[in-house]
């Protein structure tokens, strides 16, 4: 006997899907199509003058060494944020899971930063690293390091990486912790009986069993580094000094909303879209194969 629930009507499934589809169409497909359309036009801010220019906006982008620089900055930034974020939170989760005392307190404290808005996180870090007044900057001076992220591009990049990683650690931590707790105790005990040390257990058992979680977080973190770090960049460096922290999404915002160059900004968002689609494809095609569910 067929126990599946089957819709007899043709339109009921569509009606049930409609709200979700509408949201996707209005908030995802429509803007994406708009971006593609606007990227082949040159127009003034008010839309009074519209001129079809074909791929000129794109040619200009890729002929611009600064845009290529922005791609490079984004690559460095997102790899740094993802790798550092995952490594640190996995380490923390591993130890929080094994902690014997004050387990709950550790966990609660580690989850806190997630409740902080990105812009606020940016300002917090800015205070600590303020070249003349900041606690950390003052402390670094004792070690002979002159901290001035307003002029030094590498320091500015490091600063937004730190703030972005800090902001994301809680999120990663929760997932890693849940992943660790779902590893059957029996497997770990068996390993202990076999004489495996902590590191060996981690490498041979815990890490492979965590791989679905790690893969999921990997994808989420890349997307986070590409898009959600916007507020941190905006509040901390606004892309400067020079263009050393101008990641792609910030440049889209700046050129489109502050500078009102709609054609150029749309072309950039199309490029960004293509990059993210490509990355997601690569992740699912090649990396997911190594994941053991």
């Amino acid at each position, binding site marked *: 006997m067929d126990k599946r629930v089957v819709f007899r009507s043709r339109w009921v499934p569509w009606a049930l899907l409609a709200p979700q589809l509408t949201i996707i169409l209005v908030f995802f497909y429509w803007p994406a199509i708009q971006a593609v359309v606007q990227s082949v036009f040159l127009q003034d801010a*008010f839309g009074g*003058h519209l001129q079809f220019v074909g791929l000129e906006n794109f040619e200009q982008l890729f002929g611009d060494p600064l845009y290529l620089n922005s791609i490079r900055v984004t690559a460095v930034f997102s790899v740094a944020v993802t790798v550092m974020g995952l490594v640190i939170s996995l380490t923390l989760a591993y130890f929080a899971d094994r902690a014997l005392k004050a387990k709950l307190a550790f966990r609660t404290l580690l989850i806190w930063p997630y409740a902080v808005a990105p812009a606020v996180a940016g300002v917090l870090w800015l205070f600590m690293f303020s070249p003349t007044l900041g606690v950390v900057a003052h402390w670094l001076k004792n070690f002979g390091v002159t901290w001035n992220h307003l*002029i030094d591009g590498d320091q500015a990049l490091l600063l937004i990486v730190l703030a972005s990683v800090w902001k994301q650690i809680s999120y990663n931590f929760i997932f890693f912790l849940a992943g660790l707790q779902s590893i059957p105790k029996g497997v770990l005990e068996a390993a202990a009986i076999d004489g495996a040390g902590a590191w060996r257990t981690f490498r041979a058992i815990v890490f492979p069993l965590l791989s679905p979680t790690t893969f999921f977080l990997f994808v989420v973190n890349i997307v986070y580094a590409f898009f959600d770090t916007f507020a941190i960049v905006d509040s901390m460096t606004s892309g400067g000094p020079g263009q050393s922290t101008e990641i792609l999404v910030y440049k889209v915002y700046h050129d489109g909303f502050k500078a009102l160059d709609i054609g150029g900004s749309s072309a950039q968002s199309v490029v960004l879209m293509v990059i993210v689609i490509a990355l997601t494809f690569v992740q699912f095609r090649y990396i997911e194969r190594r994941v053991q569910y």
Partner: protein
Amino acid sequence: MRRLTIGAVAFAAAGAFSVPSYAVTEIQWWHSMGGSLGERVNSLADRFNKSQSEYKVVATYKGTYPENMAASIAAYRAGNAPHITQVFEVGTATMMAAKGAIMPVEKMMTDAGEKFDRAAYVPAVAGYYTTAKGEMLSFPFNSSTAVFYYNKDALAAAGVSKVPETWPEVAAAAAKVKAAGAAKCGYTTSWPSWVHLENFSAWHNVLFATENNGFGGLKGKLAINTPLHEKHMANLADWSKKGYFEYAGRTSQGDSKFSAGECAMFTGSSSAYANVKRNAKFNFGISKLPYYTDAPGAPQNSVIGGASLWVMAGKPKGDYKGVAKFFSFLSQPEIQAEWHQGTGYLPITLAAYELTKKSGFYDTNPGTDVAVQQMIVKTTDKSRGIRLGNFVQIRNVIEEEMEAMLAGKQDAKQALAKMSSRGDELLRRFERTAQ
């Protein structure tokens, strides 16, 4: 990103439809005046509304200048533009180029039969918003200019007896401040491009861009690749290396470095006065911008920052009568003088300046007239103001290259050459969209 636009439009639409319509005509005014300035704006609208019964001005805060501009443009594209919107000075060329989208203020005033006298306005202020033919396109509202602030206590402690008037004197004073430990840093600045290139050019009576800084047409190019500009940039780099000058960032970050007592001298907007006065725990003075004595024609006049009120096109004729009445209300010397004295913004009419002077305000608040003194001279073609398209991006380019120079990645000559070539590309791009 695009969601923001939709949100803004939806919000604008909701705002437009949710208001019940009475016989009173509503005038929507979008602005970027937060905090205590916002309260002043509301008070202006209230007083106008009480002064007559035909029109009601509704003032709405729409975020920062760029945010309000983006919101107004999105609303215009959706057919829901406000009557009046406040646009900052770097957006001026964009607004001027949007011919069908704006209603020239002078035309609106004369059409509505309101009194309008070009000569009543401070030339260096009104000139910024006036076409080559002399027609005033937008209504100057809050204008400031760059001035020099100094910490009297710190300079005295460092043994600087004379207020620095030239750039070499500023450097010498900064060196003394550092040596004596009178403050952590000698000199800093807010708005680096505005102060050190835009105002710098006008103050030395040299061009910032060709075609009279863009007033003459859209074909202008940046004209900052000169020995004078190079000397100043090279000095800034040198002073930064020696620790006399501390770079604070691209916007108003310098204000708080000065008012916190961190830096002994700073150049910033005259409208920072109220905040500095409230926060500074030391005696401070304001004087004119420093200059180079070997530049002929310096000091000339400085240029303005701040914003003006633009009237959007496509509203019913009757509405414009109300807007015109409101602008007449705002132009009254008493209102202008009150705004000028309370905010540190420049008086926009000569009558308001005279009224303030007569009231003795400048005597009891020394330094508040410096900005006016810098502006009230007769302007030249080189110093009238700057009107360039894509100016937001150009400023960004200038500040990026300046930062790379201060970081020691390039020298002043290379920085200026890059500013010019990158800036010119943006100008050409704007020229094409504006045709």
